Structures are given as C-alpha cells and as structure tokens.
C-alpha cells in the first residue's frame, strides 16, 4: 500500500505507517554476483545494519519488504528477479546496488546483461560503486528510509 491509498484522510496514521515501514525494512537476499559479498559484509558485525531495523536477511520473498538487487542481472535472471519481486507483499521497495544493475556497468558491450534492473522492476534507490562499500550501502538504506518518509528528493 503506497502513500495516500488509505481512502480516509488520516495523515497521522500514514505518518506512523511510514515511520514503521521505514524503520523495519527487512531485506531479501537477492545476492546475484560480486555485490552480494559486500551485502553480506554489511550484514556482518563490522557494519551491522540491524541498527537500522533491517534485522535479518530473509530468504523468503513473502517475509521481506526490501529487495536489494546486488550484482549483475543477466537476461536469463531478469524474469526470475521479476517473479521474486511479484511475490513480495506490499509495501515493497527495491535498491539497485552496484553499477551493473544501474546501467550495465562494465558489461555494456556484452550480449547477455540487462542494462539496468529498472527495466525489469521499479527501483527506489540507486547506489553506484563497483561494488559499493558497506558504508555506501548503509547510506543507500538511509536514503530509502528518507524517501519513505518523504524527506528527500534527489
């Protein structure tokens, strides 16, 4: 359920919902390639993203509301990414991590890589870098939280 779909004009409740969903983003392990290792490093002790309410990486799309697409999405993988995205319950958010999923990255010359995962699923936050450091990923998650709370637009 996106903002404004409630039917009744109850801004306080919407604010509370936004606050709730922003601070309990449960990511899905969508580790496709190199960035997955940095995603694991973000989850690990050094830069524990549990501090942001992203407590654990869920392995089931039904239990998660944030999909971090970490790594190159190939053409063969794209339909599967889409299917997993469709299986996630609303409200759902997507983070594109790494340049491969932003615009194809180093594989722009190739034949089997999707030039940007936003052609497959709608993306909320893009994190450039190859691969982005765990700090950069954490900043991306903070950007998403701000976006959910309508605090940022860049």
């Amino acid at each position, binding site marked *: 359920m996106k903002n404004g779909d409630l039917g009744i004009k109850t801004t306080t409740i919407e604010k509370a919902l936004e606050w709730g969903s922003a601070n309990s983003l449960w990511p899905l392990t969508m*580790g496709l390639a190199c960035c997955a*290792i940095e995603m*694991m490093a973000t989850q690990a002790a050094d830069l524990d993203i549990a501090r942001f309410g992203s407590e654990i990486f869920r392995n089931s799309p039904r239990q998660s509301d944030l999909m971090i697409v970490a790594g190159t999405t*190939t053409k*063969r993988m794209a339909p599967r990414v889409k299917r997993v995205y469709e299986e996630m319950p609303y409200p759902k958010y997507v983070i594109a991590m790494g340049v491969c999923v932003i615009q194809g990255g180093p594989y722009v010359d190739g034949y089997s890589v999707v030039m940007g995962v936003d052609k497959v699923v709608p993306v909320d936050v893009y994190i450039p870098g190859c*691969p982005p450091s765990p700090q950069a990923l954490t900043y991306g998650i903070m950007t998403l939280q701000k976006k959910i709370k309508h605090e940022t637009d860049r």
Partner: protein
Amino acid sequence: MAHYTELNIGPIHPAVHGILKFKVKLQEEIIEDVEITLGFLHRNAEKICELNYYADNMVYFDRMDYIDAMNMELGYLTAVEKLMDMEVPERAQWIRMIMAELNRLAARLVGLGAFGLDMGMLTPFFHCFIEREKIQKIFVEASGGRQEVNYMSIGGVYQDFNDQIINDIREFLKEFKPYLEDIYGMFMHSEIFWQRNDGIGILEPDVALDYGVTGPLLRGSGIAYDVRKDAPYLFYDKVNFNIPISHKKDNMGRFILKVEEMRQSIRIIEQSIDKIPDGPYFNNKAKKSMMLRLKGDGEVFSRVESENGEFGVYVRGNGTFKPWRVHVRSPAFKNISVVPVMAKGMMIADLIVIIGSVDTVIGEIDR
C-alpha cells in the same frame, strides 16, 4: 514401484552460494539424481575481453571469482606477460605473492562463514567477516579497492607498498593466528558439525581425476596436486610451505584441509614479507603513460592456484593491441560438475552441506 519427487533448489537460494539451479530427483529423502542448470550469471566476459585492450581486461578478471580477485588478476597477468615477453621486477613479484595469499585467506574466510551458515551455525560467519574486514582494509590501503581491487597491472603493480602496509600485514597476522584457531575450534568442537560432515560427500580420487576436479576437493581425496608446487610461478619455489592432503575423502577432511591451507598461507606471507627487496615496483617498459597499449603475439596457456583450484587462462594474440581469444579454465566449473556423483544416495539435507563444501563461486563458473 519407485515413486519419485522432483525438487528445485535455486536459482535464488541461500544454500547454493550464488545463483545456480539444482533439480533434484528424490526417492523419499534419498537423492537419486541431481541436474545442474548454469548460466544465470553468464556475463560474457570472454567476448568482451576480445573487444578490449589487453590491460583493460583486468576489470573483468577481477569479477570472475569475485572473492579471490587477486588470484584471478594473477592468472591473467602471468599469461599476458608471457605473451608480451614482459619482465616483472622482483619487488612487484613479492608484493603480488603476498597479496595473492592474503586474498586466498579472505576467500577462504567467506567460504568457511558461508559453510557454517549452511548448517545453521551463525556465529562463525560473523567472526569470519570480522577478520575478512581487516584483510580488506589492507587491500584498501594498498590499492584503494575493497574487493574488486584492480591492483596488478601488466609489468608490475599499480601502487607500491609502504612501511605502514607492511606493518599492518604483520599486525594482522599476529592477531589472525589465534583467531583462526578459535574459528576452527568453533566448528570442530561442535557435535552437530561432526555429525553433518563426517562421512558425507565422499569423492573417490579416480572419479575426481576423471571429472578434472582440482583444488581442495582433489587434495581432499588424497592427490597432492597444487599448481604452486607443480609448476611454481612467482617465487613459490623460494618459500617453505606444505601442501596438505587428506585421505579421508569426505567433507570433514576437506574442511580441516582448508583450515590447514590457511595456516600455510600465513606461513608464506610471513616468510615473503621479510624478503621484499627494494627496487622498482613497475617495469619501466610498461611505465604508465601509454602502457596499456601493448601488442601481444602468439599463444599462451598459464595457470595459477586460485582458491578453488587450478585457474588456467588461455590467451591468443594476433599481433594487435587486442587479444584474439581469451579462454578461462574455470576450476569451479569442474568442481560443481562432480556434485551429482557426491550427492547420489545421500539425504537431501546432505546436498546443502556438499554444495557448501565444494564452495563454488558462480561468477567464475558462468563468466
């Protein structure tokens, strides 16, 4: 009458270490057959390598075995430098060796952590990543990149070691040695770990050779094959180390062997860090400016020992600035092909442990 169940594992499954699909044919809980589907991470690196200049391809080799980037670069560079008759200064070779071994440690740590996760052991994962983070900090100090380092280049390494890096490596090793024993202890004193691994995933040596398996998987079957010993590259013939082998042939033996290899890697680094000579870290012939435009001619097949085994690179040049053909002999590709043999007759829960023990990296299988 036999009644079969078909079960799909993957492509997105936490236990397959990446994106791979296993189609398992089950009779009750016993595995009859495993069919592997590859290609979900086929990034056409070999084709792009043909379109690029020689030195630009480092980017793609970094991302093949993405947790062992230094060894991948080394595999490509040993081939290309032979192709161009380029000599590498001694200092650069020692630096490369230290970095390759450090990265082997880092890659093993990821492997061990994920192996623990497969069995529901969450604690070793965190401890492994704490240590890996320290290695990556050394990489950043040296090269500026955390994981995909792009540190080596044709004719040497991009940036020189300074005293701080050497100190940091020494300090890291001092801390790491007891830490490794602790991580090892976390696994080895656990009964569940023993019960899930002892006698599981048996790989006979003749089967392993037939399938072209290399690396810890082959050494775990009792065949002492390591490229560092077989055809020493860099200065591996100037340092003392052991090639551990195990005749136990199962997951347990392989696990102990991997940890033993890490201890040997530490030994290599300790010896080589004292031996780094002064001098240039880059071949002047390939010195910066237009170094990336070098011609290569002829053909060469070069191999190095990566974390998964023998990583071979075949490069064919035709006298121009771009390679005519680059082909990679991927160790993980061979290793994964033996999983159906190892898993046959086992329980479905054992398949997960076997995949964890084989420890593949998909980026290198599909390329």
